[in-house]
């Protein structure tokens, strides 16, 4: 199947059949740094969950090339409607570890005010959506944003991310159909990581490829080696340029692998063999890109350790900052339901506050809350 996919870097780091995209030394190094930082964040995040310091975690290990390579093709003003396995996009767009960790801890400095499980980030300041747990819901919303940009004649592209499981969702088909009909400036990025929790891709679709689904909606579908960051970037750049030029949407299928379990609550040894893990371990996108960079003189082997150390100390500082913060105030539970609290919400808050102050709320045993 490899021959059917765009591939710039072969698995051993050597040049493959697809021509490399034009990227400067600085750009190549930025992509690699972001990939490595994402991997480090992932490993640390999972550990924090295992240590009981955060409640949950969703790993992105193995999918760094796919989501970072594609998002690198966007302008900063473009919109991203991502899923929960794409944290590198936020790092690429300037969100800090500390901002992300506040969210994972659901603390008073979490910009989403402790409202969602860890890794369900929302950063409007970098045009990145509020991440939803239900699969595929962001896809139609991305199309709507792209339609809005077109209506307003803004040169803006919306890029949306989902997995192979996401292609079975109602919102995938509806979103693809709407985008085709309106020729919306939207790029659909399917990170085909082979697994929807325990369901393998052949249990998800009878299509020969995910890219093939594009044809039915009247748009090009491109199949790419999703562990090859340069092939991903190349395909994404073409799709983004095409969208921005008013030529409509594209579906990208990035063939990759979820190297970790679905989430911190999942045991993937129940449904995946060690051989499979080893096979895909050899295709690690980070190692492959490093080999390419070293081979081309863009990166020194020794730089890895230096970068890893600086990322780790940055992460450590972010964790310490996040752990210093208490929970959000109790009253905040009643905020942001609507712009203004209704009389009913005020009444319910008053009742809870009184009960809390009287000491009659057993839930308060988990800790003190600022009011």
């Amino acid at each position: 199947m490899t021959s059917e996919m765009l591939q710039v870097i072969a698995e051993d780091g050597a040049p493959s059949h697809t021509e490399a995209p034009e990227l400067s030394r600085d750009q190549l190094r930025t992509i690699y740094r972001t990939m490595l930082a994402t991997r480090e964040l992932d490993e640390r995040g999972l550990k924090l969950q295992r240590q009981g310091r955060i409640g949950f975690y969703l790993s992105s290990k193995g999918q760094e090339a796919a989501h970072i390579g594609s998002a690198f093709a966007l302008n900063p003003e473009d919109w991203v409607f991502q899923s929960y396995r794409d944290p590198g996009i936020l790092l690429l767009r300037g969100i800090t570890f500390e901002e992300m960790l506040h969210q994972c801890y659901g603390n008073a400095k979490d910009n989403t005010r402790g409202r969602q499980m860890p890794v369900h980030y929302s950063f409007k300041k970098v045009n990145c959506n509020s991440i939803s747990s239900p699969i595929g819901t962001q896809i139609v919303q991305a199309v709507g944003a792209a339609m809005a940009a077109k209506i307003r004649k803004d040169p803006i592209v919306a890029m949306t991310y989902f997995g192979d499981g996401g292609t079975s969702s109602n919102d995938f088909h509806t979103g693809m159909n709407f985008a085709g009909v309106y020729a919306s400036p939207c790029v659909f990025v399917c990170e085909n990581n082979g697994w929807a929790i325990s369901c393998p891709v052949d249990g998800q679709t009878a299509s020969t490829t995910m890219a093939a689904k594009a044809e039915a909606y009247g748009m090009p579908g491109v199949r790419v080696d999703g562990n090859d960051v340069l092939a991903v970037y190349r395909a994404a750049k073409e799709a983004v340029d095409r969208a921005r030029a008013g030529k409509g949407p594209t579906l990208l299928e990035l063939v990759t692998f979820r190297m970790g379990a679905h989430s911190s609550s999942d045991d993937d040894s129940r449904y995946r063999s060690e051989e499979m893990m080893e096979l895909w371990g050899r295709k690690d996108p980070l190692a492959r890109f490093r080999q390419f960079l070293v081979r081309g003189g863009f990166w020194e082997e020794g730089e890895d350790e230096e970068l890893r150390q600086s990322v780790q100390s940055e992460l450590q500082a972010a964790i310490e900052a996040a752990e210093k913060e208490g929970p959000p105030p109790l009253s905040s539970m009643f905020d942001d339901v609507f712009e203004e609290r209704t009389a009913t919400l005020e009444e319910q808050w008053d009742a809870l506050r009184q009960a809390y102050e009287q000491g009659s709320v057993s839930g308060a045993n988990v800790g003190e809350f600022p009011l």
Partner: protein
Amino acid sequence: MATMTLLQAINDGLRLEMGRDDRVVVLGEDVGLNGGVFRATQGLFEEFGGDRVMDTPLAESGIIGTAIGMALYGLVPVPEIQFSDFIYPAFDQIVSEAAKMRYRSGGEFTVPMTIRTPIGGGIRGGHYHSQSPEAYFAHTPGLKVVVPSTPEDAKGLLLASIRDPDPVLFMEPKAIYRNTKGEVPEGDFTVPLGKARIVREGTDATLVAWGAMVPVAEKAAEACAGDGVSVEVLDVRSIIPLDEETILESVKKTGRAVVVYEAPKSCGFGAEISAVIAEKAIEYLEGPIARVAGFDTPFPYTLEHMYLPDDGRVRQAIKDLMEF
């Protein structure tokens, strides 16, 4: 003032707001050239063009999902769901996405969208053109639910809904789309969400209703007046937020409450209103809170008029309560 039907008032409100605010867009099935199957969007396509009045593919979740994306981007979408019976494919986008966006993003992302959809029976539409699904949505934190019953309110509440910073489900009682005429102020005005309307004052019992049940309640109240019973009629106008104050004030005055609604009786929004009255005004009651509602059956075709609450059933409920 101009005399309009409820439908004309909605059309007038949409035209006014689209002219006033170029972020307002309309989308839905057949809303463009055709002007909507009920003609609520008639003339808007010609006046504002295809970029602002969009005919969509036939997928309700797509209509609402894309409208959410437009709202996130900065537009003010007014999507139409052709019949509220068809709204369920969009349930997830309405309930888990639009309604939760402000909360789950810590107030960063908002969805100022008004979903218009016709509700209720009385047009011989059978199960799939007659439902009143307001209670499903009223149970959703983050969503406002509005039901007008007069042309003036239809325009004023619609303008308030479109300008509201949060998502609003604007449910239009289709049975009285064309047969209710009334004076409607020309130009711009709003009717605030969350304020009930006292339709008729009375001292012996309170009828609480919304949408197409308001004229039914009025007719029953008129008949009760002939029976020597003075009935107050309230139109809640917005289900969420609910104007508890006006309802409780009235019930405390009359001592009797009957809630009238078209939806199946069990777990309908009348159950919530009954609970509020029981919680906060039980000591004022002279008898049990009554509900005159649709039955816990699917909406029937042939027997529609036996299913729908009518003035006779409402009058009987009041009589029973007076004799309690």
